[in-house]
């Protein structure tokens, strides 16, 4: 099912007769990867669903203008990370206006989430990831969970490979310290 190439999808998408079919193929190929990336960033399923739909609507609107000098999947990842971070920043602003005194407690949120089945170590790992600076968090998620190459990550995050390696190094060390220091 996912053996169709990105090139074929793009060609079909350019044809109005096969545009919707191409989009369906694109979604079937990438929806899970994009969803899980978003979910690991925003944590909550409903939030991830909203962000995921926004990502693919943006793809629908802008795929025509996609320049093929980069890979389709890094372009999708770029949109997904940007949308997720934008969503989180908006959420933080809302939270700081509405409930400024109550701290955001990820542990409680995960424990109450019916769509989270991790044990205590997994909860603490998510806490550790959430405590990272934005850039390090993105690098760690893409490398640790999505097993992305630094070169592809460089396209996605628009950062040099050296800087990405340093960010990953710092992220891993911080997470280890967080987990072993519990």
């Amino acid at each position, binding site marked *: 099912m996912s053996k169709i190439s990105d090139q074929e999808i793009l060609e079909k998408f350019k044809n109005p007769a096969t545009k919707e079919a191409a989009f369906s193929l694109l979604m*079937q190929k990438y929806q899970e990867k994009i969803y899980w990336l978003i979910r690991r960033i925003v944590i909550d399923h409903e939030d991830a669903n909203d962000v995921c*739909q926004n990502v693919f609507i943006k793809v629908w609107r802008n795929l025509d203008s996609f320049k093929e000098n980069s890979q389709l999947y890094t372009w999708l990842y770029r949109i997904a990370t940007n949308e997720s971070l934008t969503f989180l920043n908006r959420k933080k602003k809302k939270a700081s206006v509405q409930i400024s005194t109550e701290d955001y407690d990820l542990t409680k949120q995960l424990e109450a989430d019916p*769509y989270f089945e991790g044990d205590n170590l997994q909860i603490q790992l998510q806490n550790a990831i959430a405590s990272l600076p934005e850039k390090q968090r993105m690098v760690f998620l893409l490398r*640790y969970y999505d097993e992305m190459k630094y070169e592809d990550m460089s396209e996605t995050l628009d950062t040099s490979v050296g800087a990405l390696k340093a960010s990953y190094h710092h992220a891993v060390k911080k997470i280890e310290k967080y987990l072993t220091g519990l």
Partner: protein
Amino acid sequence: MTLRNDISSELLTLSPFLATVERGNPFRVPGGYFTQLAQNTLEIALEDDELRASAPVTMNLQTADNNMSVPEGYFEELFHNTLAQLHNAEETGVNLPHAATPFTTPAGYFEQLQANMLLAVKDTAHDEDLNTQFLHDAAENNGFATPPQYFEQLHATIWNRLENLANEETGCDTGNIDHVARNPAFAIPANYFEELQQGLMAAINEEESVPQLLTQLPVNAGFTTPAGYFEQLHQNVMNAVGVQAAATPETGKTVPMPPAQRQSDKGFRYVLRVAAVLAVLFLGWQLLNQVPQGNGKQTALLSPPSPQLLLKMEKMKSDLGLTSGDLTAYISNNAEEFASVIDEKIDANDIPAQPQITKNIKLNPEAMDLLDISTDEIEEFLSE
């Protein structure tokens, strides 16, 4: 596969601990979510397209945040800028724009506000009184009623009932019971209880004044003795019983001690002192070397007395016929002295250089009492 291996070995190098953590996905999605996601998203995208085609201006307004902009940092500084403007207006006396306060009040509203509020509160209180009056009435008139003068006559009624009951049971006339109960035979003076406290205090003060009077009396209280009476009293008594006062009372047979034996007595006391000091050293060493069971912490480590010293001490003990109980009793009666002896005899050389000396010193409470040494004093001593 190579990429996965590279990432795994990289992680293993950076953090062996994190490499052992299972990289599974703890997140879940509702059942059938991904099968419908594409269709749902496509529907939304198509609706969006239709809207854009039918109302391009309105749809562009939805993304107005891209079309309109504010200077950089505008919202961050908005509060401070507004506050600064207000302060400036206050300082310069410039009236703020009327539009800032679009609401108005009737003339004299604030001047009359306090008086109006008081009136409103009084009216409210009056209304509340009216509203709650029925509760008081209901409490007093709870629906039940008693005959007129019921409570006033209740006491007499009960006594009459009792008299009648007694008459029925005994056949006797008990009419005087009521009289006795109402007129007890004992009586107290008028205002007795009112004046009781004052009377008691007066009595107490009177009693306390008696010893003071006695102390003011002369020591001989008016009586005298003949001159030299007390000096001669003993002799007079002895004469009266026929015994010479100067004679030494016969208490037993006295045996003079030869000089050699007196010298031995002096030596005995000396040896006893030495033995006691050695015993104190031994006892002190034993007390300070108590090791608590189980927790593995050694409390205090002092070097034990040499075997020669112990043998010598034991020999002295046996030569002098002293028991351990004798020594313990002697030590307990001279605890302060022995504590100071221990302080003098134990010097820094007795303490080994090992780091086992801890501040967690726990001596036997009896030993602590015996030596009158606190834990802090021992810690201070060991630290020195």
